[in-house]
């Protein structure tokens, strides 16, 4: 079921939680709402669910599920499944009763027979691999298991759309990874439309067909994960989607200076801020004629495919992060306290005060 939001706004007291937002979610899509806390992503999700209502504004706002206008429809009749960050399981009911709840509260006419409910609940429990725990109570389950129960419970009523509010936020890293993979698989098997909220860029990029990046109650960009990462529309998106190193200084005659550091750039005179991803920083023992960025290694984390190195210097307000191949790491014999020179492979800049794509990427 596709979802269409038209002109949805929300304020709480004096704060504008959501500026008028338009959003189209296609049938069968898995969409992530990504943003820092306070960006309005959870509010938007709760409005889709019907747990909050949008402001009445001058222009009419509408929420459509497919051809169905659900703007005025109560949450219980919207045919949604909602998964809460803290599971919100019914603690006094067994796992079985939790999953069966949505079916047992249906009006008598629509309610499936007891045998049918039983069969459906066990099919769901099997799907979330918890059929052996059907008689347990939520307090006896781990966080990951509870969240799977909560998912099975939401799916039991065959919702048109599945909405998940930071579903893996309360779980530890390993379980989170498992559940993500598992949700992705479930989604491709059952092919429902789902929207989930997260503040974790990695989670959003890994899970979503498309990501909606939000900040301050606005949608900043909507795109597929790779497009989003490679062509962010503005500085906020660029900075939010990964680690960023800042190089701030002033340009004079094509040289950006910052303390005792300098870098040749073909930019007009004036204050300037360049942004670099960690993998765009190369480290060497020498400076070059066009680039003199002395740094000191302050921390090394050799875990993973690349070595993460933290760099500090007098001319840096915040430490830089560089990712270095293991081969280079060994060649330079890096250790803490070592003096090296940073060389940008590439840098990015965004025009201040513009919403549009005033982005430049240069290869240094």
């Amino acid at each position, binding site marked *: 079921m596709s979802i269409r939001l038209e002109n949805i706004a929300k304020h709480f007291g004096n704060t504008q939680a959501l500026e008028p937002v338009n959003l189209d979610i296609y049938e069968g899509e898995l969409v992530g709402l990504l943003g820092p806390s306070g960006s309005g992503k959870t509010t938007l999700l709760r409005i889709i669910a019907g747990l909050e209502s949008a402001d009445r504004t001058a222009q009419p706002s509408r929420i459509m599920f497919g051809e169905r206008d659900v703007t005025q429809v109560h*949450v*219980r009749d919207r045919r949604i499944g909602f998964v809460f960050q803290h599971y919100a399981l019914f603690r006094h009911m067994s796992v079985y009763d939790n999953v069966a709840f949505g079916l047992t*509260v249906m009006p008598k006419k629509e309610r499936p027979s007891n045998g049918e409910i039983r069969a459906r609940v066990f099919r769901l429990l099997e799907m979330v691999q918890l059929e052996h725990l059907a008689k347990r*109570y939520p307090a006896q389950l781990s966080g990951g298991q509870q969240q799977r129960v909560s998912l099975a419970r939401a799916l039991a009523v065959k919702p048109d759309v599945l909405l998940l509010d930071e579903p893996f936020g309360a779980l530890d890293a390993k379980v989170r990874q498992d559940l993500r993979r598992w949700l992705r698989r479930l989604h491709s098997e059952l092919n429902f439309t789902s929207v989930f909220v997260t503040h974790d860029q990695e989670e959003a990029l890994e899970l979503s067909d498309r990501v909606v990046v939000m900040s301050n109650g606005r949608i900043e960009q909507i795109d597929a994960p790779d497009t989003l990462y490679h062509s962010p529309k503005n500085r906020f998106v660029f900075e939010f989607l990964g680690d960023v190193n800042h190089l701030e200084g002033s340009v004079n005659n094509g040289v950006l200076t910052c303390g005792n550091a300098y870098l040749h750039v073909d930019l007009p005179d004036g204050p300037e801020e360049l942004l670099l991803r960690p993998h765009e920083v190369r480290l060497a023992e020498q400076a070059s004629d066009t680039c003199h960025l002395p740094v000191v290694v302050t921390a090394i984390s050799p875990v993973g495919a690349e070595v993460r190195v933290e760099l500090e210097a007098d001319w840096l307000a915040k430490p830089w992060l560089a990712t270095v191949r293991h081969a280079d790491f060994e060649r330079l014999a890096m250790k803490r306290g070592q003096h090296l020179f940073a060389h940008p492979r590439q840098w990015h800049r965004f025009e201040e005060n513009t919403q549009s794509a005033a982005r430049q990427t240069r290869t240094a």
Partner: protein
Amino acid sequence: MNQRALRLTGNTRVLPGFGLSMGISVLFISLVLLLPITGLFGQLAGLSLAQYWAIITEGRVVASYMVTIGAAAVAALINAVFGLLLAWVLVRYEFPGKRLLDALMDLPFALPTAVAGITLATLYAGNGWMGKLLEPLGFQVAYTWVGIALAMAFTSIPFVVRTVQPVLEDLPAEVDEAAMSLGATDAIAFRRVIMPHLWPALVTGTGLAFVRSLGEFGAIIFIAGNMPYETEITALMIFVKLQEYDYAGASAIASVVLFVSLALLLAINIWQGRFVRRLHGGKG
């Protein structure tokens, strides 16, 4: 046993002072609670079983049990309903004056019960503010068992509110939202999701309110009218015996109240323990 094992393996207990604090607690309980009760039973020693039985089954006393228990039951039920509602309003909604209402809840505890009794009697007497309104409608409150129940309800409402409130605060609003997102109507969500959580606290609070009402004296005697066989409460019977210097008789009646209260409290405790264990997955 466990305690001794810990001692033997060295000072493994993180919080020190178990022995001392336990000792003081037991001493305090003995002085404040057990000693008077022992005194009460000491008074009974002068009675034979037949005498004891005769005192506690005397017609006027039995009538007072009926009045007391009946009024206390009505008061407790009224408090269960309205106490739950008050707790709900205090926890789930934000409104101006919420703090004030919250503080007012404890007033019946703070107010001398006699003051409450006199106030209620004045209000509901035939010429009082409320009495003037109600009596023409043929509804007499003062000097009837309705008045007794009213006074009981007044003094015991905090028990229900204060036991239900924390449990309700502990129940996240997400749980009702989950129930509604699954299609439950408000009534079903309340009955199947919210009530089961509140049940133990509500029963405990109601039970405490009931037991408190059984022993209430000051608030009731002014409004009760104290007609023998009709509006005399058990606490008054004890008082009457005391005025006649019949200490043994007073103790005999008091012991009945004590046993009933104790049995009820114990029953509630055991029942609640079972329920809570289920919520905590059979481990608590």
